[in-house]
């Protein structure tokens, strides 16, 4: 009979969780589903927080699900959101390439989809909101060229290969370096999870092979932070310029404190709000452009502090 006791207990736990969930229910009838790729990543978490904050202001119920990086989990979760009769879906795809399956399912149920950060190539969302990564990476590249006087050896700590952000940031950065022949990419290696400890290990190995590296580009702030740590540990006799991308909280702090030299701050708050506004517009049958690419802001020690207080 222990099992019965167990299940009663867990039923109570579930009921408690249910209350927590329904307590947040708003007066307004609109319900919008937010499917996040991975809440462990600060970038996604920031978007989530801004969507939820904007929803609360407007009295719209936001149901958030977290796929923890697994595409199959995300398909199931979106299935549940559709069952829940959401009015619109904000979809931040998990996995290397965005899956079209959830968009198809939502469309079949007559639910508009706002794709954020990545867009399924086969079945794109009704609108797509992302940073113009190519342009932003190019801006970053130009800045690097300018800071170094046009010479240097670059080590690139890549993100997960095959993902859209990795490809776009590579394209933009290389475009900038094309106009800056004195700077050469001497090493590049991919990480799997965009994590700081990976960045540290990869950069350390690069410095071992080539201590003459003068520039590190981490494809995300966490990777750049790892690289900066590796540089510090290596005790080099020359300065190394370390730049990142994303402008997440840890990255901005590091830029403010001079640990990183620059990053490109994505407008996560703006994107979250824009995603919610687009979703409402789509529900109301208004026209929304198919792509709404946002610029990112070059952030150095001069403007980092401001962004920390008031993230764009």
């Amino acid at each position: 009979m222990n099992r019965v006791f167990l299940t009663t207990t867990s039923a109570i736990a579930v009921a408690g969780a249910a209350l927590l969930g329904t307590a947040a229910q708003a007066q307004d009838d609109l319900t919008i589903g937010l499917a996040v790729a991975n809440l462990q990543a600060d970038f996604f978490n920031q978007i989530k927080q801004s969507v939820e904050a904007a929803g609360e202001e407007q009295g719209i119920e936001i149901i958030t699900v977290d796929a923890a990086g697994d595409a199959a989990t995300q398909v199931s979760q979106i299935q549940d959101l559709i069952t829940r009769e959401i009015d619109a879906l904000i979809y931040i795809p998990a996995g290397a390439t965005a899956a079209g399956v959830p968009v198809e399912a939502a469309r079949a149920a007559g639910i508009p989809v706002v794709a954020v950060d990545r867009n399924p190539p086969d079945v794109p969302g009704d609108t797509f909101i992302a940073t113009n990564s190519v342009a932003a990476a190019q801006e970053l590249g130009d800045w690097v060229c300018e800071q170094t006087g046009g010479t240097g050896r670059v080590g690139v700590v890549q993100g997960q290969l095959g993902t859209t952000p990795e490809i776009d940031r590579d394209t933009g950065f290389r475009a900038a370096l094309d106009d800056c022949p004195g700077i050469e990419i001497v090493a590049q290696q991919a990480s799997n999870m965009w994590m700081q400890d990976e960045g540290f290990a990869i950069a350390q190995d690069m410095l071992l092979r080539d201590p003459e590296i003068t520039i590190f580009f981490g494809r995300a702030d966490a990777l750049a932070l790892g690289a900066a740590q590796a540089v510090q540990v290596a005790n080099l006799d020359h300065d190394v310029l370390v730049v990142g991308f994303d402008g997440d909280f840890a990255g901005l702090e590091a830029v403010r404190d001079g640990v990183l030299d620059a990053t490109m701050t994505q407008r996560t708050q703006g994107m979250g709000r824009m995603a919610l506004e687009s979703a409402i517009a789509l529900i109301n049958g208004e026209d929304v452009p198919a792509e709404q690419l946002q610029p990112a802001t070059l952030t150095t020690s001069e403007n980092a502090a401001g962004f920390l207080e008031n993230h764009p």
Partner: protein
Amino acid sequence: MVAPSEQDQATGRLTIPSFNWGLGFFGPLVGLVLLCIVFSFTSEYFFTTRNALNILDQVTVLGILAIGMTAVIITGGIDLSVGSVLAFSMMMMGWLSREFGVPLEIAMLCAILTGAACGAVSGLLITVARLPPFIATLAMMTVARGLANILTDGRQIVGYPSWFTSFATVRHFDFLSVTVGVFIVSVILAFIYLRYRPGGRNLYAIGGSPEVARLSGIAVKKVTVGVYAMCGALSGLAGIALAARLNSSQPSAGLTYELDTIAAVVIGGASLAGGVGSIAGTVVGVLIIGVLSNGLNLLAVSPFIQMVVIGCVIALAVTFDTLGRRNR
């Protein structure tokens, strides 16, 4: 402790009859029913045919993996490689059909064979090299994940023919998709095998004690390799189902699925010590996990609270199971 056992011996007192025939899933079943009742009252969306079918859809991959894992755990082993083998098999299928134009039907068969081969290697490491199952399958977990990435240099393969993706998406007779059907058929076959065939019954002997099993004339090594190979083949099958569901093959698929699978099997009443477990219990365990995350999603419970709830349910299930065993 001394005297009560003497007492048992003296009187031949009848203790709980415990045919490990699969009736041990009664407790988890009560739990599942309770969960369903709670969700039915708290969410208007839960108790609908469509949602029930959704849940079946959602647990198919986990369920197929859990069948193989049940057999492995009954023998007293563990297979940590199911998620990686799933990814490797699904990549093998996509790679063969994409790069070499192998007909998809044959590529599907190859995916299952790939899984079986991985499992057989694990089984041989355990029986011939005498590695503990935990270590052998931990090694296979890493190797298979690496192989899955090597095939396409880490890229995923997107876009299968529509007849293939319809396996997961089209509900025949408004009821069953092909993948759910495959899951149900696998469950029935496994149930029959474990209950009515000597080969299945022998797994319980091996889990109870490999030495007793061997002295009883059971070819323990052969059976062990077979069990891991079958678990691998089922991982391959699950990989096919997942590819149909995602309309793609991803080398990163199935990360940490081994833990979900083990949790489902253990919630279903199996003992990691071996010799105890049933397919019926496992199905209930799989459904508990599926219903729990489905219901919590429907209730719009925050993802962070969901993690806590699911963790608590697993801990409670196993705690009461061990306590119950000790009290016997």
